[in-house]
């Protein structure tokens, strides 16, 4: 097995006049969790579909598990498990039947599927639901079944398109925990998400996308340190312009997003002293996160 699971070089794709993926290059090592992070419409899903050979790039080179994609994508897909953005389980089938039918798509015999079903049900915490119709399952259970289904062929690589979108916090944490377990077992994960927290918790490395372009790449912690590297004060209420003038001396930079003022404070104590006397403000001091990196890089409503 090659140590590079996915390699993209100069990949471009446009739909009509709209450039969706703009000269993207990245490489995912075996056993790594690599995140594609960006807002809706950044091109994340298109990239995931390209990796699976479902969208052909206009130009550029792609290799997935040693196979040239899209030409030999089918061979790569034999060793890939996919968790799509929208559940596409068989609602009228039972949990067990869903796994059986999906196993057949990988040319597995009924016996081969039956041999792996107990472990998959346990993994998805659906042991008691094996013979329940999928239509009767909760949203979180359906997602976990989708994840179990993606593992039926014992894939080397998992491609997950927004795996926790639409789940409640409990369901989300349960999925994250399962994914960490898979990483511990040596699986490679390509994950698209617009949840900064998800990316920060799971990804070894990530690529921040905007409008189909890579605007940053690296380890989450390093990106945060490089781009922000100081405490953040969130300020709600008051006039953003007046407030930013007040705290500018103590800030590396200041950003306004919606009604919130983000102060990247070199000297948070002094900034807070300036603000505390003022009525009608709510203040929150916290360590920096990927959200700040994204805000910084996309430069929405930058203030200086």
């Amino acid at each position, binding site marked *: 097995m090659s140590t590079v699971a996915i390699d993209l070089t100069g990949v471009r794709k446009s739909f009509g006049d709209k450039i969706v993926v703009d000269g993207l290059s990245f490489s995912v090592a075996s056993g790594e969790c690599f995140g594609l992070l960006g807002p809706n419409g950044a091109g994340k899903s298109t990239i995931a579909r390209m990796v699976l050979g479902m969208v*052909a790039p206009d130009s550029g080179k792609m290799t997935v598990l040693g196979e040239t994609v899209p030409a030999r994508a*089918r061979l790569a897909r034999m060793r890939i498990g996919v968790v799509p953005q929208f559940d596409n389980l068989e609602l009228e089938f039972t949990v067990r039947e869903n796994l059986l*039918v999906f196993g057949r798509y990988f040319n597995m015999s009924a016996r081969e599927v039956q041999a792996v079903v107990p472990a998959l049900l346990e993994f998805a915490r659906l042991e008691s639901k094996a013979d329940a119709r999928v239509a009767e399952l909760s949203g979180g259970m359906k997602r976990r079944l989708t994840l179990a289904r993606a593992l039926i062929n014992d894939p080397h690589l998992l491609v997950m398109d927004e795996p926790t979108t639409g789940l409640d916090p409990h369901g989300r944490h349960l999925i994250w925990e399962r994914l960490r377990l898979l990483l511990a077992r040596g699986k490679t994960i390509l994950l698209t998400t617009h949840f900064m927290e998800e990316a920060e918790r799971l990804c070894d490395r990530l690529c921040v996308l905007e409008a189909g372009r890579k605007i940053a790449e690296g380890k989450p912690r390093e990106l945060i340190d490089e781009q922000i590297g100081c405490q953040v004060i969130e300020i709600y209420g008051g006039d953003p312009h007046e407030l930013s003038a007040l705290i500018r001396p103590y800030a590396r930079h200041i950003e306004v997003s919606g009604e919130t003022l983000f102060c990247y404070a070199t000297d948070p104590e002094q900034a807070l002293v300036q603000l505390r006397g003022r009525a009608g403000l709510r203040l929150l001091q916290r360590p920096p996160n990927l959200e700040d990196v994204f805000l910084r890089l996309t430069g929405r409503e930058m203030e200086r």
Partner: protein
Amino acid sequence: MREGYAAAMPANAYNWVAVWRRNFLAWRKVALASVLGNLADPMTNLFGLGLGLGIIVGRVDGTSYIAFLAGGVVATSAMTSATFETMYAAFARMHAQRTWEAILCTQLTLGDIVLGELAWAATKAVLAGTAIAIVAATLGYAAWASILYLIPVIAITGFVFASLAMVVIALAPSYDYFVFYQTLVITPMVFLCGAVFPVNQLPSAFQHVAGLLPLAHSVDLIRPAMLGLPTGGIGLHIGALCMYAVLPFFLSIALFRRRLMR
């Protein structure tokens, strides 16, 4: 680009079976309702038209009208069951249910899926067509021995109309468009192709058109067999049906690729 189309074709000779088995499992859960629903319409036609009109019409081509009609109803029911299975059920699996999307994430190709769907629609055509042939044989309107010969002909007929309907669903934005195919193609074919009255009753221009339509070839193979008469031009009929099955099959894969793989 050509490489992309090649990758969408069936990967091997057996991948489609998994798709057929998925549809079979889904059908098994509703089999009774499905069989009754699929047989009610052709049976009504056979007895309603056959006995009712038969009184007025008398004998057609030297046989009773209902015996003449039986072959037409077998061919027509194969056509409609394959058409409707594809237009409604397969379209739902491709579109709203996202079943195809899930399958495309496995090692199956688009061609494997389409082939599995065609084989399934042809299976449903065989069920419907054979059931009617058995009823006709039981009532003495058809030769029992002909049924074994009919099965492959009904299966090809099913493939043909499933394949044609695949092109329709590859192009149709929604269910609303199917009615055009149904009213402008399927229904006229019943009357042009000799299913309910002999083609030689038509003006000669229409007879020429009928000779090009797939249902006419099915009827020309099925009816003489059921009546125990010699069948002419078997090779020509089979060849024409194979063309109608194979060309739309490849066309639909190319169209689906444009629709789904982007």
